[in-house]
């Protein structure tokens, strides 16, 4: 399942790219700017500002949706047919995130911008976690290979290695996230197991695949000299790592949490400014890495 096809993306790999966002992620990072990407199922988003109180959603899902004084209340667990809801809200205040598209259908969307990709651009598969998808991912990667479209995959590396391994020859560049090296902290802030990520990173390194390391810089989580040094030192131990991209924390996704009815755990955290990353970049450069802010 995918939830977005974003054309003219300029910060997810080289050149101009179309990003395919897959739905479903093994992690649930506190700072996630696309929280609707975490569930493998449909997500129900409600943007109050757009709500015109037509009431059609209440009629469609009587048990789950009820009227409040100035809008609606949704009990997402009780929604019976989220797909049907897609056409219910006329003002698009209530939207359903998630589309089941075949690889061929996704390819049609990708090919619309093929002229803009040029020498460096192409497709970036993102998510969620692309490698947590089933058959359809493999199918799409094969189609893209046939069409000679450059493919980057953004990955948490938080999946069983064989899910990655079987796609190694179909991906041009991996954009692999390294969020932390500490087990407890990683567990607390992402819900995952950091040793899975680090082992997979070593395997990816050994495979000879081309990859770029991406480090999100998150205040309160890893935004400190000590933690960053550890991560960069770990990357230094890899044979084939050449480039590290630093992704500063931002708040563009905060509104989405409200729309999904889930709490945002990083409340009151300020956006990280580019100049806060200087020392990290310098350190990485001293270790021989190319660095960049953003992807």
């Amino acid at each position: 399942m995918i939830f977005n096809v974003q054309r003219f993306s300029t910060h997810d790999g080289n050149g101009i790219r179309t990003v395919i966002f897959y739905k479903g992620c093994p992690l649930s990072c506190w700072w996630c700017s696309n929280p609707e990407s975490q569930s493998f199922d449909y997500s129900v988003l409600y943007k109050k500002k757009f709500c015109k109180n037509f009431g059609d959603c209440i009629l469609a899902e009587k048990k789950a949706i009820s009227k409040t004084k100035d809008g609606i209340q949704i009990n997402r667990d009780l929604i019976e047919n989220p797909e049907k809801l897609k056409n219910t809200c006329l003002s698009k205040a209530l939207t359903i995130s998630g589309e089941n598209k075949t690889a061929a259908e996704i390819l049609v969307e990708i090919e619309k911008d093929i002229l803009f990709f040029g020498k460096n651009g192409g497709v970036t598969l993102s998510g969620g976690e692309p490698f947590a998808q089933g058959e359809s991912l493999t199918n799409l990667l094969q189609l893209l290979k046939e069409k000679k479209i450059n493919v980057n995959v953004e990955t948490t590396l938080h999946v069983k290695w064989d899910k990655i391994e079987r796609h190694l020859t179909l991906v041009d560049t991996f954009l692999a996230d390294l969020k932390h090296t500490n087990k407890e902290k990683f567990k607390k802030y992402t819900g995952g197991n950091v040793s899975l990520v680090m082992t997979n990173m070593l395997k990816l390194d050994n495979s000879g695949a081309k990859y770029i390391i991406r480090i999100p810089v998150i205040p309160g989580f890893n935004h400190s000299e000590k933690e960053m040094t550890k991560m960069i030192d770990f990357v230094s131990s890899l044979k084939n790592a050449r480039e590290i991209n630093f992704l500063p924390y931002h708040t563009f996704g905060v509104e989405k949490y409200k729309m999904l009815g889930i709490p945002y755990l990083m409340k009151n955290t300020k956006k990280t400014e580019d100049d806060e990353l200087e020392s990290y970049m310098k350190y990485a450069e001293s270790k021989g890495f190319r660095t960049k802010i953003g992807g």
Partner: protein
Amino acid sequence: MQTEIKSTQVTQRIANLREKVISSKPSVCTERAKFYTQIYQDNEDQPVIIKRALALEKTLKEMTIFIDDGELIVGNQSSQHRAAPIFPEYAVDWLPNEMDELDKRPGDAFFITDEHKKELNEIAKWWKGKVLWDRGRALMSQELRDLQDSAIIKATGNLTSGDAHIAVDFYKILKIGLKGYLEEIRHYHKKTDRTKLEGVKKDHFYNALSISIKAFQSFIKRFHYLATSMFLLEADEKKSEELKKIAENCAAITENPPTDFYQALQLAYFVQLVLQIESNGHSVSLGRMDQYLFPFYYHDKITGKITEEFASELLENTWIKLLSINKIRPWSHTRFSAGGPLYQNVTIGGQTTEGKDAVNELSFLILDSVGKMKLTQPNLSVRFHKNINQIFMMECMRIIEKGFGMPSFNNDEIVIPGLLNLGVEEEDAMNYSAIGCIEIAVPGKWGYRCTGMSFLNFMRVFLASMYDGLDKQTGKTFCKGTGNFLDFETFDDLYKAWQHQIKFYAKKTIEIDAAVDTALEENVPDILCSAFVDRCIPRGKTIKEGGSKYDFVSGLQVGIANLGNSLAAIKKLVFEEKRISKEQLLHTIETNFEGIEGEKTRQLLLNFAPKYGNDDDYVDILLKDAYLEFIEEIEKYHTTRYNRGPIGCRYYAGTSSISANVPNGAVVPATPDGRKAFTPVAEGSSPSSGTDILGPTAVFKSVAKLPTKKIMGGVLLNQKLSPATIQKDTDKEKLISVIRTFFTDLKGWHVQYNIVSRETLLAAKKNPEKYRDLIVRVAGYSAFFTTLSPDTQDDIIARTEHSLNF
């Protein structure tokens, strides 16, 4: 967002001159009006062309002239900076009526003294019944007058001012000088056969030409005398030297062709200036300045006669001078051209006639000097082609980043084949330039108004096709239709109704244009402008009589995106999915989507039907076909110059409709695309506000599906980008890369960028004082944001902001 220029970037002189012009309050100057009135009164027996030559002569010889402290380039249009001269011969009735409101206009206000009001009232009385407006209306049938009054077809600007939308032959002017023109006029005048009707007219024309050129020379000579007396009195040695140089330059170019860059630029500016004293037509353009001035610049540069810094200062001074020229329009027309600039275009880049990249050192210098000035004038256009210098494109991005909407891009890869297709000779096609906003012509060889004939309101026509031809706004049926929407059984019935209506209205725009052109030809012929356009002198004809080598014109079609979106919404929701009944649709648009049911229908129309600008063939192809119905109809007709000399004499389509989307929307009730009554329609060929949700590449794809090769009057695409978008060089490269694809592969016609944040605009709307020189691009040109009407401001704010940062 920078709102001030950095003083370190420019010399103190330039900073002072710039401040002086931008801080001067627009006002009204009555000198020209007095001179013209007096000459017309004293010479009633003379043919109009002689009257006009004598009036121009009197004006150029007697009007106030001045040289500002520190100026390097001289020449003023009226008695003060930004004081608009009055051109009573075109239209003057409106002036007494609007006089007391001039300084209270919501946009484009003018200051006027009581004394001037009195004078103008007297002048207006004499001109009653004698002006272009009266004549043009008299030449129209009642039907055409009704159509104009209905606001379905608008030609107010065409009957209240001169034509212009033209660039003259600067290559030739700089080559032969004014003396050369007098010789050429004498040569052909001698050959005139005065035994023929044609010969009698030619005789007058040549007499008028020679009076006008000589008057132009006297005008330049007056600056020589003024500078001379000033330098003799000037105590400051450096200033005295500068004034002496001005005096020498003016003396030299009064007669002879310029011998260096400084003189060439001064002469080019003088030509640009007097054309705007002769006529108040706007979009008088400077053509390919980096090409015709380059030989002078190059020579001076290698001989060490000029430094890059001084050349830049001269150019900057010229841009400030261009801004000091002003025009006053009736309110009914001002609404159509927000911000009130004169659209004096300068074009750089492009190719040489041999097809090589024409970017040179001067292209960079012009680009950077315009970037330093951050003014609304000149309107800077860059001709893109597939081999254009990448460093130059990067420099363009840096200027775009400054956020004053320039430069805009025209695309050689579509314009040149389009011109060849029309029958333009290859060498001429390679030499085209932008005119005014985005439209194009071959400088010095093309007649007036490569765009800018009448405006046609597409959505009024579309609504008439739903009501059996009835225009509900006026209650008139101008063209009996093919039935009512309720009786249409298929979408095809509706489409046929559109076909039927649009063909009728297309023809009516041409009938109105023909009446307007006849009035312009007979009442207000331009003389100097004709002198500087190729073939007028050998043929002994003004441009309007068929003097130019080429003659192609276009009107402006407004509401392009709304047409496509309305067709798509009806096709999908009414006929295919049947989610809206025909009755329901009519009821809701007639009641402007009132009530909860109305709003529901509106949301359905907005959110559940394909929208132009999202690369969706469903709507894009519908729009293309519907637009072609209009285009194919106008291709059948000719201009009033047909068979009188020029190549072409044909019409093509155009969408460079400036900010006309606001007043055009103000006369259209609710439409089936979900647009509310009397709100703006979509601008140019851009998508409707807020409906392009897939980003710029999807917009490019949609726009490129229009029949761009047949829309030679301009396929205007305005894209707004937030400032953060192109801060980094890598982002600039990416933007260049999409532009390259749009132009080289998709054959897009034009694009321009408004780099400005929403917050800035909102703040500027709230506190105009603090944002006095905040500039925005309004569909084809730049304007001071604070001079725009609130409606136009809101429209700009509402347009989708694409961001590269997500």
